[in-house]
């Protein structure tokens, strides 16, 4: 009998067919990402995917970077958030040409969202003319990690107030990072249980060639080192 559609017709026989795509679920995203990467590279734009928890200081790092650069490099950005354009507005006030990507319910940016944002005439123009294009991801230490956005490098902002165990708890995020910025270091005197040495050791356990900078966006300490890292990536 037929159990193809469940009709019970005895004259219909089923035949087994196997299809083996062996394709990554991220294949469509990765194709968009390659398109973006080619676009950034052709324009001489250093694209940086900035990730980290909500409140880790991603926007503050970019504001402090803009202040430290004093116009030496042209900066542009997109900021992903579930709601509001608050981060993009902050960056615009700090001199970074920026646009929001409001994701609604999505917990991460994907390459298609960044691509669509770049087709906004105002941002697209700024992104073509800039030296460094920051893609400020949705605040989240899990979901954004697996989406290639066509960036040249990935920066994870991890504030010292989040606890030294975070690299061990969220290894995938740190595994593919090119740089970790340990932020809010001005708060260390108020965090007697937080050891930067232990934090760095935990990073080295999940991140090959671990590289971390200590930065305070409030005092400005360490921002020059981040700027030097950006310069190094532009030169390389």
């Amino acid at each position: 009998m037929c159990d193809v559609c469940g009709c019970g017709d005895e004259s219909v026989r089923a035949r087994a067919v196997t299809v083996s795509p062996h394709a990554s679920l991220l294949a469509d995203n990765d194709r968009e990402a390659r398109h973006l990467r080619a676009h950034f590279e052709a324009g001489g734009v250093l694209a940086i995917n900035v990730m980290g928890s909500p409140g880790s200081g991603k926007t503050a790092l970019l504001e402090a970077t803009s202040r430290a650069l004093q116009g030496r490099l042209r900066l542009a950005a997109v900021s992903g958030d579930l709601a509001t354009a608050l981060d993009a507005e902050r960056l615009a006030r700090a001199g970074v040409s920026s646009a929001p990507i409001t994701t609604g319910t999505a917990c991460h940016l994907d390459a298609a969202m960044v691509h669509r944002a770049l087709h906004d005439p105002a941002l697209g123009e700024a992104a073509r003319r800039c030296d460094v294009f920051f893609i400020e991801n949705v605040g989240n230490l899990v979901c954004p990690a697996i989406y290639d956005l066509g960036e040249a490098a990935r920066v994870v902002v991890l504030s010292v107030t989040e606890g030294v165990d975070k690299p061990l708890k969220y290894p995938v995020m740190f595994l593919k990072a090119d740089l970790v910025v340990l932020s809010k270091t001005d708060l260390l005197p108020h965090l007697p249980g937080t050891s930067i040495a232990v934090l760095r050791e935990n990073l080295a356990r999940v991140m090959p060639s671990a590289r971390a900078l200590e930065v305070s966006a409030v005092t400005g300490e360490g921002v020059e080192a981040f700027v030097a890292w950006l310069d190094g990536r532009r030169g390389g």
Partner: protein
Amino acid sequence: MHEVSLIEALFDQADRAIAPHRPGDVRRITLRVGALSGVEPELLRAAFEGCRGERGYHRASLLVRDEPAAWRCAACGEALGEALPLACARCGGDARLAQGDALILERLELEVPDV
């Protein structure tokens, strides 16, 4: 919950792979998921159950094959075991993930009318 986005991508790929057939023909979908793929298999299964009806895959089940993580030395290629060590014991080189980040649609098993 990027698992829902990934399951939508899975059905997009499945639709293309079985183009001559119907989604309702698919009985089993095999997915390889790495330990460091950034995906929680339980959440993936829940997303699959939530989405398969509206995508027409009424009779499909999801088989998740786990892929363990494995590291190799980026310099000399020495296998470094499942847990990431700080450096290669043989030459001191950095570790490189050799496997464990897969999110691969491996196989679709269909039953189609034999006419």
